[in-house]
């Protein structure tokens, strides 16, 4: 009898597990968004570890296994993951996730992108022609994408539509509540030197000038010539260098020595399994990092 009870319990559990939407997120930020919006009605896996450059990832068979079993794919989009997600998707043979189907969701397609470069060619580096795809470092845009994601999930599981919409709306509310706080942190921020153009949305949102990029061109590692040019351009100015976790620190030390700027290494994704609180905390860390270099007093711009 006990056995039967246990068995039926297990069956019940497994059947509830199956009624959940199976979501595959390209990055851990997207997994955070899917978990935030989907709550208890989704089970989410991610493909790119948080400490990797999502532009460049190698396809793994386990990606195809995950995509094969998924009901919904949540990606950043705007070609950010094109090099590995499209072949993985093709290899997975899951028609539910084909672009145009209900199971395909690109966050970047839900919002306006900044800096589109339709005229760009590859001599300008690995540019993103439709605009900057790194919207995950822009809480209001991500919240907007969350609202759209709620509708995408609602289309797949209409019985939980209101639940998804409620979750997405409360995430957007959280972002709105935090925004003035972040903005107050960066009120007098002098400016930031980025490695790649991935925090431009956040810098705009918090009115922090972007003073330059360590990459001479998108996707190209820093060259000595580019660095010395940066140093001569920025000499005497105040600023902070923010480096991604996956790039070597060597080039950063030159900026540190030559300009005397603080160098802060920050992840751009929440840890695996990260929640919306972790995400908001990450954005706060970025805001604090922006604030690490203040405008000289009595010299408001």
């Amino acid at each position: 009898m006990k056995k039967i009870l246990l068995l039926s319990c297990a069956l019940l559990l497994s059947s509830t597990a199956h009624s959940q939407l199976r979501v595959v997120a390209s990055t851990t930020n997207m997994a955070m968004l899917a978990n935030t919006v989907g709550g208890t009605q989704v089970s989410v896996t991610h493909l790119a570890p948080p400490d990797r450059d999502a532009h460049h990832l190698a396809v793994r068979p386990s990606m195809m296994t995950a995509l094969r079993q998924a009901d919904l794919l949540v990606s950043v989009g705007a070609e950010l993951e094109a090099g590995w997600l499209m072949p993985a998707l093709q290899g997975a043979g899951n028609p539910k996730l084909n672009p145009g189907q209900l199971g395909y969701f690109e966050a970047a397609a839900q919002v306006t992108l900044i800096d589109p470069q339709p005229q760009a060619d590859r001599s300008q580096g690995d540019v993103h022609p439709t605009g900057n795809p790194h919207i995950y470092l822009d809480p209001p845009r991500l919240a907007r994408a969350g609202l759209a994601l709620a509708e995408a999930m609602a289309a797949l599981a209409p019985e939980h539509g209101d639940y998804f919409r409620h979750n997405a709306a409360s995430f957007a509310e959280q972002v709105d509540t935090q925004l003035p706080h972040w903005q107050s942190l960066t009120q007098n921020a002098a400016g930031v030197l980025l490695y790649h153009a991935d925090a431009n949305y956040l810098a705009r949102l918090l009115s922090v000038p972007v003073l330059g990029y360590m990459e001479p061109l998108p996707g190209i590692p820093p060259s000595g010539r580019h660095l010395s040019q940066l140093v001569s351009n920025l000499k005497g100015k105040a600023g902070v260098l923010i480096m991604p976790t996956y790039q070597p620190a060597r080039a950063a030390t030159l900026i540190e020595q030559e300009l005397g700027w603080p160098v802060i290494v920050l992840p751009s994704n929440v840890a695996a399994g990260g929640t919306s609180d972790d995400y908001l905390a990450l954005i706060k860390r970025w805001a604090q990092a922006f604030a690490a270099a203040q405008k000289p007093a009595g010299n408001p711009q």
Partner: protein
Amino acid sequence: MNARIFPLAAMTAGILLVGAAQANNEATNTNPAIDSTGVDRARISAGTQMNPTISVILDGVYANFSREVEGPAGFGSHDHGDDHDHEHEHGLEEGFSLRETEISVSASIDNYLDGVMTLAIEGNSGIKVEEAYILTRSLPAGLQIKAGRFLSDIGYINRQHPHDWQFADRPLVSELLFGEHGLQDNGMQLSWLPSTSFYSRYGIEILQGETTMASQDVHETLEEDHGPRLYTAFAKFAPDLGMNHAAMFGFSGGISTSFKKEEEHDDEVELWEGDGWFAGIDAVYKYNSGKPFGHGNWIVQGEYYFREISAEFTEIENQIIEEQFSGRSKQDGFYLQALYGFAPRWSTGLRVDGVGLTNTSLEPGNDAFESFDASYRYAAQVSFAPTEFSRLRLQVNNYDYAHDDGDHGHDAWGVMLQYNVSLGAHGAHQF
């Protein structure tokens, strides 16, 4: 806009407008940049709208050999001491040579099909259709059908285009057992990816049989058997090794229902008629260090194939049968290679090639097919890839080929300097 997509797009657009209006009310107005107008709410993808995807691969080599390299014994054309042209390596001449210029176009035809076409302009010998196939995109249960001309999914390297290789040249076993383009044929493929936590993929192919084992090299005496003549099957397994490691193991095999070959020399005609089969195993392991630009990454891969052709050999001179016997040609080969990213954007690799470890060829001897020694090739390369779109490679080969006359004194060295660039779309690299 595609009629299939329109209702969905309209729905999404409506939803988004509502969402946007809502967000507007809720104090996101602090940043004017967000609410700039002109965004196409009906978009499904924010990616490139370019459809079809077009890319062009340019590939050139400067090669230098210490001496003339003749093909490994037992795999070449039947030598009667005539003045045969001995190529160095496939498509490689001493000095500068332009290799395959590949033009690849792919697109979604509709919701049901993708289309892929790759043309290869080979040096100066004309245009060849490398691949031209349609692939289903909406079959249920993890099933996919491919039809047209394509690279077979047997083994690991066979389906890769030359610009995906880690070395400048194709492994000997692939070239000598399947053809100078590998197993590339017209036909159909059915594959299945079951929905399990463990990756596995199974497939069968029905092919016309243009390549070695099912080829019909007939002239005046023999008649061609109609196709399809080659049936293959493959299975691939990949355990989930986490984010940093990946491995795949494959098994493949095939049956040829007809092999025919005819050679004429003055008054003499030689005929082969039979059938054949092959079987092989392949394995690949990849380590991703997480460092940028491939630094610290490893790729180790290897394949082994065995091929048997049972054939009746007949030699006819002035309409009289001079010699006739039945025999089995049994040949095999392997390669094993390792690649290591020793610095950002730099990688180095070593490869060992071996063919004819079992080497009963199709060369007629005394009432039986002749056997030869094994041949080996050793390669080392260093590559620099400034971006994912360009690569420079320096490769050194050492050829230790057995010769037809049993003589082994034919060691040779080769040096190749290769460039390989792609124009257009992002390369989509399968595992």
